[in-house]
C-alpha cells in the first residue's frame, strides 16, 4: 500500500524540474549528431528531452534561459567501464558491490541491481561533465576463485534516483592473463571452457522444458547463469572482453566469430598492432589512451599512439577514465589522445556518442539531437582541457548542483586560509 503512494510522491517531487523548458543559448554547440558543430546555437530541452538544436531556433515563451555565450556546449559524457553506483570506498568491503564470491552467480550477476544513487562518487563525476555511465561488474578475486564471467553491465544515469537506464548492456569477461588465471592458469583452458559453456547454453536453450523436468544431463552452470548467457549466444548481448595482447585479441575475435557472439574489446593495450583485424570484425574498443606502460607481458606493445591508430584503422573507440573516484579524468585522457594524434572530434566522440552506440544507447544519449535525453554540459573552455571546467551540467533537462562533498570540504576550510593570508599581508 505504501509503495504506490511513495511512487506518486516521488513523481510529484521530480516533475516540476523535469517539466521545465530550458533554452541554452549563444554557445558553440558541438552536437556530435547530424547537425555537427554550430558556431552559435541554441539547445531547447523540454520535459527532460531535447526538442530542438540549431542556429536559428526560437526560444519558446516561458523557457528558462541559460546563457552559454562564449562557452562550449556538448552532450554529457558517457563513462564506460566504471563502477559508479557500485562502490564507495575501495578498502571498505561493505561499500564495494562490484562483484560476488558466489560461484553459482557468475554470468547472472547483474550490476543493474544494488545501485546507490547517493554515492559520493556521482557528484564528483558530474563535475567532470559525466552524465551517464556503464556500471560494470568486476571479479571479486578471492583466493581460489574460478569464475569465468564477472556478470552483466548496466547503463546508469548520474542525476540521482533512479539510476538504472538499461540493464544487461554487456556480459563482462576477462581474457588474456587474468582470464587464463581464472580458467586454471592457461589461455587455452579458458578458450576451451568458453566453447563448452556456450555449447551448454545452446543445449539448455533447446531443452528448457526437459531441464525443468530434470531430464537433461547435469550442466556445469547454474540455472541463473544459463539464463543470463542466452542473450549472449543469441547475439543480443555483447560480450565485453578485457584483453590486451595482440594474439589474445586475435583469439577473442576468432572466438566471437566461431561462436557468433557480439564482441566489445576493453583495454586492448596492443590493439594498434591488430587494428585492421579489429576494424574488419566491426568490433568496438574501450580504452585508456594514456596506458603506455609495459606493466605486464601482455602490455609490452602499449603506446600513446593506440587510440590514434585504432581510430585511423576505422575502429569505433570509446575512451575511459581512470576508474571510479578518478572517472572525471576521462576527458583528460581524451585530451591526451589528441595530444598524441587523435583528431579532436574523434576524441570527443569517444567520450559521448561512441560509448552510447557501443552499448546500444544511441537512441537516448550521446549527442545533442531532438528526441534524446537532455544530458547537456556547458564548459568554460575546451572540454578535453585540464584548464577548462564545466559550468553547468544538465541530466534529463535538470540542472545538477555544481557541488560535491569535496567542494563542501573545500568551502569549509578555505576561508580560514584566505582570511589568515590577507590579514597577514596587511600586517
Amino acid at each position, binding site marked *: 500500500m505504501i509503495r504506490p503512494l511513495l511512487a506518486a510522491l516521488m513523481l510529484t517531487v521530480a516533475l516540476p524540474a523535469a517539466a521545465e523548458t530550458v533554452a541554452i543559448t549563444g554557445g558553440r554547440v558541438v552536437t556530435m549528431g547530424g547537425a555537427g558543430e554550430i558556431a552559435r546555437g541554441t539547445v531547447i530541452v523540454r520535459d527532460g528531452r531535447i526538442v530542438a538544436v540549431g542556429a536559428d531556433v526560437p526560444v519558446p515563451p516561458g523557457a528558462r534561459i541559460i546563457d552559454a555565450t562564449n562557452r562550449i556546449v556538448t552532450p554529457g559524457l558517457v563513462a564506460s567501464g566504471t563502477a559508479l553506483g557500485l562502490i564507495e*570506498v575501495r578498502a571498505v568491503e561493505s561499500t564495494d558491490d562490484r562483484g560476488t564470491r558466489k560461484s553459482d552467480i557468475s554470468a547472472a550477476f547483474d550490476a543493474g541491481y544494488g545501485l546507490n544513487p547517493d554515492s559520493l562518487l556521482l557528484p564528483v563525476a558530474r563535475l567532470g561533465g559525466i552524465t551517464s555511465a556503464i556500471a560494470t561488474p568486476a571479479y571479486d578475486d578471492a583466493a581460489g576463485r574460478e569464475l569465468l564471467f564477472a556478470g552483466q553491465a548496466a547503463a546508469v544515469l548520474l542525476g540521482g534516483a533512479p539510476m538504472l537506464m538499461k540493464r544487461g548492456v554487456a556480459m563482462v569477461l576477462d581474457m588474456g592473463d587474468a582470464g587464463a588465471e581464472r580458467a586454471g592458469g592457461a589461455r587455452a583452458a579458458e578458450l576451451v571452457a568458453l566453447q563448452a559453456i556456450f555449447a551448454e547454453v545452446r543445449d539448455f536453450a533447446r531443452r528448457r522444458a526437459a531441464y525443468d523436468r530434470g531430464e537433461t544431463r547435469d550442466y556445469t552452470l547454474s540455472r541463473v547463469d544459463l539464463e543470463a548467457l542466452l542473450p549472449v549466444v543469441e547475439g543480443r548481448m555483447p560480450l565485453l572482453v578485457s584483453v590486451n595482447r595482440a594474439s589474445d585479441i586475435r583469439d577473442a575475435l576468432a572466438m566471437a566469430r566461431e561462436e557468433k557472439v557480439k564482441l566489445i574489446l576493453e583495454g586492448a593495450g*596492443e590493439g594498434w598492432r591488430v587494428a585492421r583485424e579489429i576494424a574488419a570484425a566491426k568490433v568496438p574498443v574501450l580504452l585508456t589512451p*594514456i596506458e603506455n*606502460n609495459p*606493466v605486464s607481458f601482455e602490455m609490452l606493445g602499449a603506446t600513446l599512439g593506440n587510440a590514434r591508430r585504432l581510430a585511423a584503422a576505422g575502429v569505433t573507440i570509446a575512451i575511459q577514465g581512470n576508474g571510479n573516484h578518478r572517472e572525471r579524468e576521462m576527458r*583528460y585522457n581524451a*585530451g591526451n589522445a589528441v595530444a598524441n594524434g587523435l583528431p579532436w572530434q574523434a576524441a570527443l566522440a569517444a567520450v559521448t556518442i561512441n560509448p552510447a552506440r557501443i552499448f546500444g544507447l544511441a537512441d537516448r544519449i550521446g549527442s545533442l539531437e531532438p528526441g534524446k535525453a537532455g544530458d547537456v554540459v556547458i564548459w568554460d573552455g575546451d572540454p578535453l582541457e585540464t*584548464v577548462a571546467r564545466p559550468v553547468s551540467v544538465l541530466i534529463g533537462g535538470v540542472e545538477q548542483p555544481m557541488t560535491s562533498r569535496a567542494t563542501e570540504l*573545500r568551502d569549509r576550510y*578555505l576561508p580560514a586560509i584566505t582570511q589568515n593570508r590577507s590579514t597577514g599581508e596587511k600586517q
Partner: protein
Amino acid sequence: MGSAAERTVLGAGRLVGAALLLAVGCVAAAQDVGGGDPFTSTYRPAPHPPLAIVGASILTGTGAEIATGTVLVRDGKVEAVGADLAVPDGYQRIDGRGKWVTPGIIDAHSHLGVYPSPGTPSHEDGNEAVSPNTAEVWAEHSVWPQDPKFRLARGGGVTSLMVLPGSANLFGGRSATLKNVPAVTAQAMKFPGAPYGLKMACGENPKRVYGGKGRAPMTRMGNVAGYRKAWIDAADYLRRWEKWEKGGKAGDPPKRDLQLETLAGVLKGEILVQNHCYRADEMAVMIDVAREFGFRIRAFHHANEAYKIAPLLAKEDICVATWANSWGAKMESLDGIEENAPMIDAAGGCAIIHSDDGLLIQRLNQEAGIAMTAANHAGMTIARGQAIRWITANPAKAMGVADRVGTLEPGKMGDVVLWSADPFSVYAVAEKVWIDGVLSWDRADPRYQGSSDFVLGQPGQEFAR
C-alpha cells in the same frame, strides 16, 4: 685562449674538487654515526655544446613568468635567463618561439625502479614488509635501472625524482634521489650529493599489514608507540656515538647498526623525513612526535587532508606532496579535494604535486594544471608561475636539493624542458628535455628516446610510446 675553454677547465676543476670533497666526506663519515654513503654516485654528465633556447615563454620556477625570453645553459649549468639576452657565439640555438620552457620536472614521490614494469613478483622490491621498522633498507638497492618507466617519465619532462620504499612499514627505509638519466647501474643515476630521505608511514597501511598478521601495530596508537620506541632507541644510539666521539674516539667505536644509523641520521638533521600521512589529525600527531625527539619532518606525502591544517604546516615549514585527482580509495583518503595543493600554497606553505604512479609521473604538469584551474575556479588566484613550483622548486626543497635544481637560476643544474604549449595544457608535450645540459629526450628524434634493455627487441616497439 677562448672563454669557452677556460670555463670548461674551471668547470672540470670544480667537478674534481666536488668529487674530492665527497670522497673525503665518505672516509670521515664511515667513522661516525652517519655511516657515510658507500654507494657513491658515479653519475657524470657528458660534455655538451653551450645551449641557447630563444624566444619561448619561460616559467623560471622562482614564481616568475617571462613572456618571451632566452635561457642559456653551459657546462651543465643554467648560465642566464632573461627577456633580453644576447646569444653568445658558438651556442647551439634552439628556436623556442610559440613554446614554453620550464625547469626539469621533479617528482618527490615515485616508486620507479623499485616497483618496475613489468610488475612481476620478481620485480616487487619496494616494501620490505617483514617488520614495521626497516629503517635499515635503502631504496637504491632495489632500483632496477632498466625499468621502462624511467624513459616514459623522461618523455614527460621528469629530470629528477625521489624513489621511496613503500608504505607498509612505520619506517620503510631510505629513499633514493635520482637524476632521470639512462643508466645501467643505480649509482650512475644517483643525484650527486643529495641527502637521503627516510620513508615513514602513518595510518592504515602499517596497521593493516601488521595487524593482519596479529602483531603490532594493529591500531593508530600502536603506530605512534612504534615510532616513539624507535626514536628512543635512536637517541640512545646517537648518545653512545657522541660519547665515543667526545671522548677523543678512544677505544672501540660502538658497533654500527644500520637501522639506528638511519634514524640517528634523521636526529642529526642529515636525513630528511618523508612521511606518508593522509589525515590532518595524524599529521598533527607526527609533528608532536618529531618535536618530542628533536627532529624535523621535511614533507608529508599524499596528505589528502593537509588543507585542513594548512596554516600549521606552513608555520612548521613542512612540505605537502599530494595530488589533484586521487581520493577515496581508503577511509583516510576520503576527504581528498582538488584544491589541496593550492590551499597549502595560499597558506604560505610548500605545495607539491607528486605522482606515486607510473602513468601520472608522465603528466605531473597536467595534474598541476588541474589543481591550479580548480583553485582559480574556486576564487583563489594562482598564477602559472606559482603553480609550476609545485612540480619543480618545491619538490626540490622537499628532497633537499633546492640549491641545485628546481629553478632556472644561474648556477643551477641545466635541467630544462621545452614544451610544445602552455605546460599546464592537456595538449602540451615535452618536445626536448635537457639534463645537466645534455639533450636527454627529443620527441622528434628516436636517437634521444632510447628504450630500456628490457623492452629492446620485445614486440611492439616500432613506435615511441
